[in-house]
């Protein structure tokens, strides 16, 4: 990953934290004084490197892990905002990435019943008795990251 792509990635993540959403390629191009097609090409390289995930056929950011920008069953309140966690792992990863506490409103994958978790000082203080399940072996996580 070259310096330009690292700069673009850093800008995307900082914008996510500042604004609660990822910047478009056009917004990144303007902020970093790049041509728009150069920003789009960088977004695609970051997608190919698994540093961002774009919506299929688009340069719109779907996931900047652990943050997701499409509806999911995992709503995470942390850092003064409400986020979508891509999956159970990412839901707990958001308070970690923000180095703070967090509350997760999720649901049981089996019955859809609401589940609540709360992390304080790095430890889950609510929802400790819940289970997590990984269906896909690690080697295949990126074959279909949306399903994983």
């Amino acid at each position, binding site marked *: 990953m070259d310096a330009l792509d690292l700069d673009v990635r850093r800008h995307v993540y900082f914008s996510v934290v500042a604004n609660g959403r990822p910047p478009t390629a056009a917004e990144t191009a303007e902020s970093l004084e790049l041509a728009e097609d150069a920003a789009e090409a960088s977004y695609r390289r970051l997608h190919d490197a698994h540093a961002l995930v774009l919506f299929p056929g688009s340069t719109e950011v779907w996931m900047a892990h652990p943050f997701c920008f499409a509806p999911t069953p995992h709503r995470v309140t942390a850092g003064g905002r409400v986020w979508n966690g891509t999956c159970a792992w990412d839901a707990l990863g958001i*308070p970690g990435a923000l180095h703070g506490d967090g509350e997760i409103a999720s649901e*049981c994958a089996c019955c859809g019943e609401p589940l609540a978790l709360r992390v304080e000082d790095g430890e889950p203080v609510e929802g400790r008795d819940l289970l*997590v399940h990984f269906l896909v072996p690690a080697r295949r996580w990126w074959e279909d990251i949306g399903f994983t």
Partner: protein
Amino acid sequence: MVFLRSEEHLERWLSANGWEPGASFGTPKLNELARLWWWTRLDPGWRTRTADESQALLDSVGLTGEFWQLT
């Protein structure tokens, strides 16, 4: 990766979907992994982890064996 209320719900969910069990454990272990895995994600000097570095993080919380092999 999903949350489930109990082992009973896990078994029912797998059976209803016709899926083989993968790996399951409690939320304290996932929290430990999540904090290790994502802690540096917003660091200004972030760089891509190597596969060996990621594997070491999984190993450090006891996620070992074929299911957890990244490469």
